[in-house]
């Protein structure tokens, strides 16, 4: 696999003539986690969908480029808040979905290794309905890993989970997505403070790069610097609203 590229999104978007977000430049550094933090409706999911080449309903004027100048959308794996597991397919079949949809031969050795890493080796033949919310999200993570793409886009991936499962999932994701260029779209300051190599707040006025603790990610939940960063981010978000 080629080393993960950096990504730059430059442009503005309008929704039925009205501006959705002002001209902005978002830089995702190669091999790093970037957290895009903001309230509902500021267009942060639109940015993510633009990078992944999905329909957004908005008009985008600008360009999305990779630091190695190769095409972006085909090198992206995508994970959403909804686990999007097919209810009729087993855990293994869900993880192998990408290969099946492209008509590739499924790599069963890799499947076994990945299921092992996300701790679901004993659940390979189960249906999603037999799993807990945390387990289902781990299947979704395994499916994302199976795609073996250098750029990972996470759209509120853990926000439907309970607090302790969310913390565990954040740690697992950081461990497993090492070396990849990751964009996390979130509305949770705590998540941004834990996971961001860089933290960017998105507001109707544009993007603001916020300071983050120097410690490596995932930062401990009870670390004083992390908590201070979380508080600062929340303050920033609330000032933006006022």
């Amino acid at each position: 696999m080629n080393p993960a590229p950096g990504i730059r999104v430059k442009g503005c978007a309008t929704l039925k003539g009205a501006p959705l977000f002002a001209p902005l430049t978002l830089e995702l550094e190669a091999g790093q986690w970037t957290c895009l933090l903001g309230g509902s409706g500021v267009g942060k999911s639109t940015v993510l969908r633009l990078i992944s080449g999905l329909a957004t309903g908005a008009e985008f004027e600008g360009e999305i480029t990779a630091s190695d100048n190769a095409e972006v959308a085909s090198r992206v794996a995508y994970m959403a808040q909804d686990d999007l597991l097919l209810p009729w397919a087993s855990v293994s079949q869900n993880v192998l979905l990408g290969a099946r949809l492209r008509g590739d031969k499924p790599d069963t050795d890799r499947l076994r290794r990945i299921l092992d890493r996300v701790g679901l080796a004993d659940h390979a033949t189960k249906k999603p309905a037999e799993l807990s919310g945390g387990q289902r999200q781990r299947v979704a993570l395994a499916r994302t890993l199976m795609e073996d793409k250098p750029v990972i886009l996470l759209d509120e991936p853990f926000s439907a989970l309970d607090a302790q499962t969310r913390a565990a999932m954040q740690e697992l994701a950081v461990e497993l997505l090492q070396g990849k260029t990751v964009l996390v779209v979130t509305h949770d300051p705590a998540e941004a403070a834990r996971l961001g190599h860089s933290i960017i707040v998105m507001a109707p006025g544009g993007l603001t790069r916020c300071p983050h603790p120097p410690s490596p990610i995932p930062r401990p939940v009870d670390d004083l610097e992390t908590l201070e960063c979380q508080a600062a981010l929340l303050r920033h978000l609330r000032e933006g609203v006022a």
Partner: protein
Amino acid sequence: MRYLPALAAALFAVILWQLIVTTTGLPKFILPGPALVAETWWQYRAVIAEHTLVTATEVLIGLAIGAGLGAVTAIQLASSRVARVLIQPMLVFTQALPVFALAPILTLWLGYGLWSKVAMAVLIIYFPVTSAFFDGLMRTPQGYLDLARTMQASPSRVLWHIRVPAALPSLASGLRLAAVYAPIGAVIGEWVGASRGLGYLMLLANGRAKTDLMFAAMLTLGVFSILLHIAVGYLTRNLGKDCR
């Protein structure tokens, strides 16, 4: 235990029926009572069974062909915009035609035998099956389609691996509807021209003022339709089980 309310309702209907017959004193060629109908049914059981077998054959063949055609049409419509533009309006137009009116011409084309009745049953269930399945195919959750898109999936594989399985519960509900409609189609066909089948028997009994036999044949048809509905429901229960 599930069927207890249904049985209670049936018992209530029979009692009400007997009450009307007893209190009004209507002659038996106008409205025969349940006891007489039961007696006639038993007396003619061999004849009724023979005609039921004929109608059941027509219905089952019609159901199989209609469901197959409907499913194939729905998949065609869902996978091609051209097919939607060309075929969908035609499909809706055929639904605006009364199927009854087509029965004589079908008999003319296909003869007095089995196939004109099969064709009627097919015609009457084709639309509900197509429409239910097509609806399901067009309502695939957007998240699945987005995911497939980021995986560089080909449209035909998305259809087979995501859209069709996600639409199976809709197909199942279309098939349950078809199970109730198909016998109506076959009986209409028999009315227009036949020498066998429950529809023919009802017409024959009616013509000879044997209203009790007409009722016996009609109730047999009703019970058959309900049993078919239950059977189709049972067979298709797994189609939707995992998709809810």
